């Protein structure tokens, strides 16, 4: 039973009781936090828009038994521009969904927090780079420890002739290590993915339209395979 200060990015929230919401936030030091914001659905709520998804906030939490209660909120960053553009809003939704899927309550997740923060920054800064989502998903795979091998064989580490790709085996494969399920990728695609995986989200290399769609498809399927779940928001993002 104590008050504690924390900060976090709001991932999502859902209605709770008559006028409350349970807010799911990602804190760098405490991982995912679920806490009740009382009366937040009323137009007279003192929280106002501070607990909307994708807002980075400083909070004071009252922790009792069960769910904590949010008693104070102040905004660190509101990312207002990404809410005015459908493409960027959907991308932010996907980022929040993926980060929600890979983080746990009570487990510090500074890397996931920083990644989401950088992703939202990149979206807020201007029109969406066609490869931003692919680069983000590759970085998520790295944060959760399943980064695909891209410029070397996932089996033996050789850099020669890595032309096959296997979701189960963890990335690119050479002819000696190839498994029956490994698929052949277009020449240059793994190198393209490797460049995206290594780049800064706010400073991605110029996009190549002939690779962008395929790169996204492979990355999405790779992550869905390893997380063992479908990424719902990506389905609705195809506008």
């Amino acid at each position, binding site marked *: 039973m104590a008050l504690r200060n924390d900060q976090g990015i709001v991932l999502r929230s859902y209605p709770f009781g008559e006028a409350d919401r349970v807010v799911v936030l990602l804190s760098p030091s405490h991982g995912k936090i679920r806490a009740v914001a009382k009366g937040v659905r009323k137009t007279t709520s003192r929280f*106002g828009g501070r607990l909307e998804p994708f807002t980075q906030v400083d909070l004071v939490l009252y922790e009792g038994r069960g769910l904590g209660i949010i008693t104070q909120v102040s905004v660190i960053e509101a990312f207002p521009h990404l809410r005015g553009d459908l493409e960027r809003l959907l991308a932010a939704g996907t980022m929040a969904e993926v980060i929600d899927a890979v983080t746990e309550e009570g487990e510090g997740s500074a890397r996931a927090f920083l990644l989401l923060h950088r992703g939202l920054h990149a979206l807020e800064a201007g029109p969406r780079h066609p490869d931003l989502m692919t680069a983000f998903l590759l970085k998520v795979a790295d944060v959760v420890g399943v980064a695909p091998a891209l410029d070397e064989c996932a089996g033996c580490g050789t850099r020669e002739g890595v032309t096959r790709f296997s979701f189960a085996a963890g990335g690119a494969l050479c002819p000696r290590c190839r498994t029956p399920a490994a698929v052949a990728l277009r020449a240059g695609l793994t190198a393209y993915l490797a460049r995206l995986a290594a780049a800064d989200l706010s400073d991605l290399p110029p996009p190549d339209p002939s690779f962008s769609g395929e790169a996204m498809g492979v990355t999405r399927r790779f992550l869905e395979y390893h997380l063992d779940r479908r990424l719902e928001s990506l*389905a609705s993002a195809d506008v």
Partner: protein
Amino acid sequence: MFEPPIQRLIDELARLPGIGRKSAQRLAFHLLTVEEEDARRLSRAILEMREQVRLCRRCFNVTDSDECSICRDLRRDATLVCVVERPQDIVVVERSREFRGRYHVLGGAVSPIEGIGPERLRFRELVERVRTEGITEVIIATNPSVEGDATALYLAKVLKPEGVKVTRLASGLPVGGDLDYADELTLGRALVGRQEM
């Protein structure tokens, strides 16, 4: 465990939203003490609502006939349509007494986080109405939340090519509120949507 007839009612009541075991028990025992006719009236009201209420074929509001009373009302402006997420929202807009047009109920909101896309909502029906009913302005009255924003942006995208004026309810400071307590996002929107005096 109570006698089966009482327990059955408690179990049914406890399935309602916001009603726990204890409240269900209190309601059941209350119903045991009221006049038999009162209990019958309650059960009749529940049954009649289920049997008679359906969706308006034009706007998808709840109604007990083919079209809802708002769509049937000839005094209302048929060129103005207010788009809301749920039938309950119509009552809220009606209470303002500022709107004299018709409505369109989407049946929810697009959710970029939960993957609810526009195909699950009544977007197509709205576009069809715009094409056939001589509508000149669509007022979007979705919630000022991420889901409401996404829905409004989608609507604007599909309706603009139809040549119809698309507007959205203003966001800003609540009447009677204190500027001190306004959050950055709301105040930012209030500034963007400021009006000349």
